[in-house]
């Protein structure tokens, strides 16, 4: 039963990935910990592997629809380790709670901006 639920959540994660362009980790990690008994660290690592596969196929399909700017995507990807390093450095100096709340605020701000922009679009 747990395996079935994990599979269903994996489908949902992929579906979210295709619809809104995220990797699906938001759903993969809980599926791996809750239904398959992985630890949080194992789940996050394994979820990364799934994300790579999902994003690869998703990007391939989107490219077929003419929705990928490869050069820009590669620039973003190549420069992301800079942020990972920055993140590790920052997290050693700032409380995790402060970071969580800051990102929550940023997420809400971006959500409001997206809705405002979409509403005013022709």
């Amino acid at each position: 039963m747990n395996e079935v639920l994990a599979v269903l959540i994996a489908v949902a994660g992929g579906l979210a990935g295709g619809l809104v362009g995220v990797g699906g980790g938001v759903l993969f990690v809980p599926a791996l910990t809750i239904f398959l008994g992985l630890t949080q660290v194992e789940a996050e690592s394994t979820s990364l592997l799934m994300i790579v596969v999902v994003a690869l196929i998703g990007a391939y399909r989107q490219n077929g629809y003419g929705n990928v700017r490869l050069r820009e995507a590669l620039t973003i990807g190549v420069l992301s380790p800079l942020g990972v390093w920055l993140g590790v450095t920052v997290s050693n100096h700032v409380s995790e709670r402060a970071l969580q709340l800051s990102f929550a605020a940023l997420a809400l701000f971006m959500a409001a901006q997206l809705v405002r922009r979409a509403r005013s679009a022709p």
Partner: protein
Amino acid sequence: MPTAPGSLPSHQTLKLAAIGSLAGLFSGLFGVGGGTVIVPLLIFWFGYGERLATGTSLAAIVLIGLLGALAQGGFYGNVHVATGLLLAIPAVLGVVLGTAIQQRIPQRAVSYLFALLLVGIAIELILK
């Protein structure tokens, strides 16, 4: 955005660098995928349509995820390869279906869905 290969203007490269860094930052800090910041910033800063932003985001995530997975798997041995690959099969089914559906709904609906996702993530972070 008409940019010929090899002539990406430097201020745009800087903005892309900022998006890449933020994506890495947030995935490193919170384990939320980089897509959460890539998609909105491509829309706000580059004026991408929702489909172009999400497609480009997926392509960037391939690289971000690959770098992360290699680091985790190589250095810590935490990746359950068989489980991940098996569970990737239904996930791939989902992403193929999701991209197909996305081509058939209005772009602004993608923005609304994304806003919903962001609100969910914010709630999860606040309740942590």
